[in-house]
C-alpha cells in the first residue's frame, strides 16, 4: 500500500503535539495534527486491530506464566502494542527488523512462533528463532547496539542494490547511549535505508523521561543529524503504521533514514523482577490506561461499523487459541543439551573447546570422581 506522503524537509522541527490520525475517543483527526498523513483504509485498520488484540492476549499470558515460574523473566509490552505492531506491520517480508528484548509482540506480528520468541526468556538459549528466515535479528539486550547493526545491514543492502529497509527499535533510555548517536549519524551520513523507531514509554526501568533528556521531543534530535523526524502518538496505531510505512517506502526508494518517536507508556513493570510502586504513582498508570491503544481503535472501528460480533468472536478465538498454544509450549520442559554449549562458538573447530567438551561429556556420562585428592 502506497501512501505517497510528501515528507517534510529535514530542517523542520516536528510539532510539539504528537502526530495522530485517531484521537483518544476514537475519532478520526483532521487538519494539522495529521501531519498530512491519511488514515489507513478500514481493512488495514481491522487487521492492525486483530494483531493488537492477539498480541495483548499473548503478552498477558506470558506475564502470567512468568509469575508461575515458567519463564525466567519477561519484559512486557502491555500498552505499547500500537508502536510495536503498527511499525512491524509497515515492513515488507524482505525488510529486516532489529528488535530489543521488549519486542515480543512485534516478533509475534512478524510471524515468529511464540515458543521460539520465548526461548531466551525461558533460559533455554539466548535466542530461539531463525533470524534469516524471518529477517529479524536476535533480540538485543545491550541498549542501542542493535541500531548500528540495522544501519550496517542497510548499507550492505544498498551496496548490493537491494531495495530493502531495516527497522530498528530503541527505547527512550537507549537514546542516551553513545551507540544511538553513532547509529543516527552513520545512517544520515551514509543515507542508509534505516527506520529508527524510538518507543518513548516514559521509563528506563525506574528512571523517568525527565532524567533522560532535556530535549523538547526525541524527534527533535533528527534535525541535528539531517534526517526527517516524526513525533507520533505512540498509542495511535493508525499514525504509527502510516508514518512508518512512509519511512519504509522512503528507505526502500533510496532516500535515506527516518527517525520516529512513538509516545507511549509501559503499563507493566520493566520485567517481573521490577517493583514500579517504588518510582511511579498508580494514578499515572491509570491515566495512561485510559489512553489504551486497542480501545481507541476499537471505538473507531465500531463507529464505522467495521467490527461486528462475528469478527470480534473470531479474533477472541484466535487470541485464546494462541494463548493456549503458548501455555502448552511453556508447560513442556525444554530440552537443553549441555554439550551444545561448545558447538556454535566458532565456525572453525578449536581444540581447546573440543577438550572441554570431552571433559563435560565424561562428567555427564559418569559423574565426577571427587575423592582421592589427598592420597
Amino acid at each position, binding site marked *: 500500500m502506497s501512501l505517497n506522503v510528501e515528507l517534510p524537509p529535514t530542517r523542520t522541527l516536528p510539532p510539539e503535539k504528537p502526530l495522530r490520525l485517531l484521537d483518544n475517543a476514537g475519532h478520526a483527526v483532521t487538519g494539522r495534527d495529521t501531519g498530512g498523513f491519511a488514515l489507513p483504509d478500514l481493512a488495514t485498520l481491522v487487521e492492525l486491530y486483530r494483531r493488537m488484540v492477539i498480541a495483548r492476549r499473548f503478552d498477558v499470558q506470558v506475564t502470567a506464566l512468568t509469575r508461575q515460574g515458567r519463564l525466567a523473566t519477561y519484559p512486557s509490552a502491555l500498552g505499547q502494542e500500537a508502536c510495536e505492531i503498527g511499525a512491524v506491520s509497515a515492513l515488507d517480508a524482505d525488510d529486516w527488523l532489529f528488535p530489543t528484548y521488549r519486542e515480543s509482540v512485534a516478533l509475534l506480528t512478524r510471524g515468529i512462533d511464540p515458543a521460539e520468541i520465548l526461548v531466551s526468556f525461558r533460559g533455554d538459549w539466548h535466542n530461539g528463532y531463525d533470524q534469516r528466515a524471518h529477517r529479524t535479528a536476535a533480540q538485543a539486550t545491550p541498549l542501542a547496539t542493535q541500531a548500528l547493526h*540495522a544501519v550496517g545491514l542497510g548499507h550492505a543492502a544498498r551496496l548490493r542494490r537491494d531495495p530493502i529497509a531495516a527497522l530498528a527499535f530503541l527505547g527512550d533510555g537507549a537514546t542516551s547511549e*553513545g*551507540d544511538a548517536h553513532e547509529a543516527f549519524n552513520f545512517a544520515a551520513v551514509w543515507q542508509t535505508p534505516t527506520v529508527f523507531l524510538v518507543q518513548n514509554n516514559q521509563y528506563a526501568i525506574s528512571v523517568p523521561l525527565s532524567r533522560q533528556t532535556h530535549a523538547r521531543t526525541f524527534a527533535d534530535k533528527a534535525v541535528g543529524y539531517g534526517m526527517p523526524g516524526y513525533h507520533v502518538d505512540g498509542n495511535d496505531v493508525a499514525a504509527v503504521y502510516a508514518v512508518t510505512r512512509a519511512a519504509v517506502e522512503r528507505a526502500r526508494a533510496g532516500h535515506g533514514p527516518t527517525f520516529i518517536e512513538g509516545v507511549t507508556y509501559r503499563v507493566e513493570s520493566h520485567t517481573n523482577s521490577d517493583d514500579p510502586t517504588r518510582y511511579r504513582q498508580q494514578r499515572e498508570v491509570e491515566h495512561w490506561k485510559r489512553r489504551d491503544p486497542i480501545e481507541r481503535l476499537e471505538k473507531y472501528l465500531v463507529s464505522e461499523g467495521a467490527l461486528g460480533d462475528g469478527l470480534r468472536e473470531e479474533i477472541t478465538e484466535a487470541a485464546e487459541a494462541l494463548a493456549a498454544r503458548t501455555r502448552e509450549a511453556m508447560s513442556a520442559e525444554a530440552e537443553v543439551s549441555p554439550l551444545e554449549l561448545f558447538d556454535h*562458538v566458532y565456525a*572453525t573447530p578449536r*581444540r581447546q573447546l573440543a577438550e572441554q567438551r570431552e571433559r563435560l561429556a565424561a562428567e555427564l556420562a559418569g559423574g565426577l570422581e571427587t575423592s582421592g585428592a589427598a592420597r
Partner: protein
Amino acid sequence: MSALAEAAPAAEAGTGPGPVTMAAALNRALRDAMAEDDRVVVYGEDVGPLGGVFRVTDGLQAEFGEERIWDSPLAESGIVGTAVGMAIYGLRPVVEMQFDAFSYPAFEQIVSHVAKMRNRTKGRLQLPMVIRIPCAGAIGGVEHHSDSSEAYWTATPGLTVVTPSNPADAYSMLREAIASDDPVVFMEPKSRYWAKAELALPVTTAPMDRALVLREGTDVTLLAYGPTVKTALDAADAAAAEDLSIEVIDLRSLSPFDDETVGASVRKTSRAAVIHEAAQFGGYGAEVAARVTERNFHWLAEPVLRIAGYDIPYPSPKLESFHLPTADRVLHALAGWDWDLA
C-alpha cells in the same frame, strides 16, 4: 599515489623477491582479497584518500572505488557495529581501528556482539569480519597511541586473535583472517610496520592458528608475539655468543593457543619465558605461563617467567624505552634462574 602504491604490482601477478615492509604486505593482502572477492569491503578512519595513518590502505580507494573502501564517520563503536550488520548481510568487512587505544569505544560491540553473535544464533548469523588494530608501542607515540590491548580480546570467548611479526605472515595471515568465517581481531605491531623482509608476494605461510619455531635452541624457549618477536630473536643472537641456546617461538595466534608447538618445545628445553609489552599483571603472559605449567609441569626445571611491561599506564615517548622489554632485560631475567641444576 605514494611510492608504496606505485611499487605494488597488479593484483593478479606475483612479485619476485624484493624488500617488502609489513605495511606494504598488508596493503597487498587487502588489495588481493578485494580483487578476489567483491564481498570484501574496507572502512574506518582516514583509510580512503589518505591511505590510513600508517598507509596500509594506500591506493586502494583509487583502485576499487568508494563503494569498496571508504572513510567512515569518526566513531569506533559505529564502525564495528555497522560491520556486524554488514557481515549479517553477507559482506566481509575489514575495519581499521587506527590506534590500539582508539578501539576501546568499540569494546561493547566487539565483546557483546562480534564475539557472541554466532553462539547466540546457533551459527545462523556468522560474522566473517576482521578488526585490524595497529597495536603496541615503541614508535614515540603520545598517550593512547601505544597500548597493548590483546588480553581484553583473548579473555573474550568467540574471538580469534592473531598478530603477525613479519611481512610474510602479515600477508598470509591477513588473507586467512579475511577468508575466515569467524570474526578475527588482527593486531598489527606498529613498530614493525616499516621493517623489511626479502619476499615474493603473494605468499602462504603456516596456518594462522599455529605457532612457529623461528629459531631452534636447546636451553630455553622464548615465547613472543607481535613486536616482541624481534626482541626474542635479538636476545637469542646475543645469548648464542655466550653459549646459551635459545629457541624462539612466534605464537602468531593468541587465541586459540597452540599448545602442541609450545609444549613440544618446552619439554625439550625445560625452561620457558614469555615476553610482551603489555603490563605483566593480568596480562596475556599470565595465561601462557599458567597454561604451559599446567600441561608441562613435570618437564619444567624452573617456573615459566614473564618478561613484560611494568604495571603502569603506557609511558610518554621519552620514557617508553624504560618500560618496554629489551633483549638485555630478557637475558638478565634468564640469568636469574639456577642454571647449576641443568
